[in-house]
């Protein structure tokens, strides 16, 4: 699954550590999601979507459009 997490984080000028702190996860988890090595659970995906004020499908997709 692809995602726009890195771009969204970059737009806000947050580091991976800052985003991890806001989401309540480790920096390794943020990095693994950004690089596509790990797909987050639905609760974490909702948390990410709420944080960036977007829908889940706007951030995560099987293939980038």
């Amino acid at each position: 699954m692809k995602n726009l997490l890195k771009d969204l984080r970059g737009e806000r000028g947050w580091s991976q550590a800052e985003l991890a702190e806001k989401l309540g996860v480790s920096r390794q988890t943020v990095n693994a999601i950004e690089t596509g090595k790990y797909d987050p659970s639905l609760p974490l995906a909702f948390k990410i979507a709420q944080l960036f004020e977007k829908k889940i499908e706007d951030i995560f997709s099987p293939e980038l459009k």
Partner: protein
Amino acid sequence: MKPGKVMLLALRDIAIGVALFLVVSRVGFWGLFLFSSGDVLRQNLLALVMATVMLGALILSPLIPIGFIINSTVRMVQYSDELQQRIFLYAIGFAAAATGLLTFAYGLLEFNGYPPLGMLNIISFMFILLFASLLYFKWRFR
């Protein structure tokens, strides 16, 4: 709870476990020395019983720090995030399966004259495999 604090709590538990191990094993040695000196054991049934209890405590004393280590490990996993939990699940699954397979294979070798492998060695082997597989899966999700 923040990962750093969880780690500190886990280290505290391990330190308590090691300290308890040292105290319990010293008390056990001291008790054995005290009650086995001279002819006390032959003359005093109570001393013999107490020495036996001390010996039991000494033999089982490693269980105390192991208990603390298990407790701290469970707490670390409990307060970890979902990726860390998945890494731990993969690692413990791999360690358990690999230990089972390898010790089964060695069991077959034992039937053909290889020296027997003690239970303590098997547990140590499993912990080494768990540590190695934790490092591997952490690296894989880097």
